[in-house]
């Protein structure tokens, strides 16, 4: 788990990455639903930025790809968010 804030670690993808983590606290989501949730939290986000942030989160082991019961790919949090990660949302 990164100790530095996501905004610093992920550059321009930091904000989107943070909102992805927040969105996934309510349970696993497919990318399309994730896009809706991030847009609801963060305004306009394109699919390029979404997948850029997803790749970074996956690489850092913060989220995991899973397959839903319908056989479709989705994502879930690798582990519950820590308090300091939740507090980062206040900075955005």
């Amino acid at each position, binding site marked *: 788990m990164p100790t530095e804030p996501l905004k610093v670690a992920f550059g321009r993808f930091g904000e989107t990455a943070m909102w992805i983590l927040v969105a996934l606290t309510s349970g696993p989501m*497919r990318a399309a639903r994730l*896009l809706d949730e991030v847009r609801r939290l963060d305004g306009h986000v*394109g*699919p*390029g*930025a979404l*997948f850029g942030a997803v790749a970074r989160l996956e690489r850092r082991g913060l989220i995991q790809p899973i397959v839903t019961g319908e056989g479709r790919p989705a994502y879930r949090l690798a582990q519950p968010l820590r308090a300091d990660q939740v507090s980062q949302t206040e900075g955005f």
Partner: protein
Amino acid sequence: MSRLLRLYPAAWRERYEAEFIGTLQERPVGLTGSVDIFYGAIDAHLHPELIGGAPHAWTHRLPGLMATAAGLIWSGFYLRILLAAPEEWGYGVLIAMLLMLFAVLGDYINAYLRPIALTICALLAAALLAGVQPLNVIGSGMLNFALGATASLLLSGGMLTLAALRAGVGAGVRWLLIAGGLLVPVIVAIPIMGGFGPNDPGGAPAMVVAILPYGIAWTIIGLRMTLRGSVTIHDAPITKPITEVSAT
């Protein structure tokens, strides 16, 4: 829209393409979304480590930057000729050719030093025997013209091919760039330069038609090489990226 995904690196597409296409089908995007996907593709090339590739050292961008600069200088120089029609050749072409040479060498100089040296010597010898200068292939006789043009085409085409290989351009696109950037323009322009066309024989328009696309082809290849990364003569040769095994 999903055609834009072809701009992403192959390893990235292997991991995310199907999911990305599914998302685009469920949530279609407009022009802004297309721009966002385009930026995403650039980011994916700049950060191959995200999908298990080896991160690029900043020096890996140098060959691509040199190739891009060469293409831009070359194109700019011939555009200037077309627009302002100056008489002098200047140093633009020479600088561009040197940049092309440095961009192409890279780790090839380690692996293929002898064939490269032999090829350059053979081309120089052919040019000397034909009594022509590499930058001015039009000699007084037909033999000089033919030898000079052939040597220039081989050298230019060879360098463009090597640059395209270093940039990881596929065979189809590579041939398209060589044909569009070199072969077709030269075939079209040679009769004009020889006085068979409506233009002034050997005049600026014919010269530009023949040579400007070569600069454009180099610019395209250079941009791809910059994004993809390509080792310099000081770096270790590229090894295949390590595929990460991740548990789901």
